[in-house]
């Protein structure tokens, strides 16, 4: 892990909306902190809760999952399932001592580059404030 200072945030972005949204942040030069590492997935519905738990067990400070807005899923329904899965996972993780603030799910469309940058900036700042999980 080479984020020397500050939290490590892992982002799972669906290929069709949010990954494209992050691309759009790039093309519109909407800057955000460099703490996030993005993993491309076809759909937010491909993000296995096992992966999320694994991120946290291995010491990641925060996880962001982003997918198409409900109703806009490239695969019609994927984000509806992820919404349910993550609602339960978030509750379980929080119960087990991983604050729900550390696991964020957002809907970001391909045109919301600026919004993506804003979300990541705010998320990173929050995580800096909370401090590293390892340190706590």
């Amino acid at each position, binding site marked *: 892990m080479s984020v020397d200072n500050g939290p490590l945030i892992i982002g799972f972005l669906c290929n069709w909306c949010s990954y494209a949204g992050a691309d759009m942040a790039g093309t519109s030069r909407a800057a955000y902190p460099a703490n996030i590492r993005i993993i491309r997935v076809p759909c937010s519905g491909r993000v296995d*809760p*096992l992966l999320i*738990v*694994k991120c946290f*067990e*291995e010491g990641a400070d925060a996880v962001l999952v982003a*997918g198409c807005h*409900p*109703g806009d899923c490239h695969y019609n*329904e994927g984000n*509806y*399932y992820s*919404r*349910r*899965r*993550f*609602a*339960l*996972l*978030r*509750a*379980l*993780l*929080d*119960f*087990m*001592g*991983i*604050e729900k603030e550390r696991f964020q*799910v*957002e*809907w970001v469309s391909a045109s919301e580059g600026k919004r993506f940058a804003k979300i990541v900036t705010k998320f990173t700042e929050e995580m800096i404030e909370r401090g590293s999980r390892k340190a*706590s």
Partner: protein
Amino acid sequence: MGSDFTQQIRDKAKELLEKGTVECVIGYETGSDGFSARPAFIYEPAEVERLVFDNTCSHNLVKYLLNKKGKPTAVIVKGCDSRSLNLLLSEKQIDRDNIFIIGVVCPGVVEWGWNNRSDQLQIRCNWCRQHNPVIYDFLVGEPVTEGPPDDFADIAAMETKSTEEREAFWREQAEHCVRCYACRQACPGCYCIDCFVEQLDPEWVGIRIAPEENLMWNTIRAFHLAGRCISCNECERVCPVNIPLSLLNRRIEREVLGLFDYRAGMSEDAVAPLITFMKDEKLGIGE
């Protein structure tokens, strides 16, 4: 109650075996300590006298049906156990046509008393709202009125702790865990041929016994039962190091009930909450 229930079960088992309706009756018999029930597999009409039913009949026998695929079998279920029948039917793990269900209106089951008969009810009976079987072919006992909805006081108590305290609590539990997987073996919902925890590629859980790996196991075990756990609490009962697994299961259960108004195993054709959705629901995710 005990002797009467026992007699009814024996009579029914005898009838089923004699008629050839089933080739095996899975029930309870008195164990080696002379008073605690243990699972019994009865193949001959003559052996039905081994069968008993009392408040030590804790095991969820539905689990054993998974080994009886394709064979006509009768099984004795309490209220909670009966919900796991619906779970396995909806997940196509058992075939209704091959199963004869002897439902028993559950009087509550007691803790295992080691050398003495205990009269302490197990904690699952405190929150149980399913003394009456939800599915059966033959019912033993008069259906009772179920209590008011569960208030999940145990979960609320845990939630009064700070996040740090909760993390420390579960880390400590994880340090105790020896990954014996007894919880999995007792659970009727755990029937994967190749459990994720033992897979090497992908290696979701490291093979070493370390707290973070143990925590991964316990978290995912609970999550794989999200919307499927039927609260028989056999996992917690069989845990040799007394990890309070019910807290995890019931935290999710409360969420599933709150968000989706769903209780697992209440009917054969119910669709579990994680494999369906509603378009306009608000779940506090991405809003």
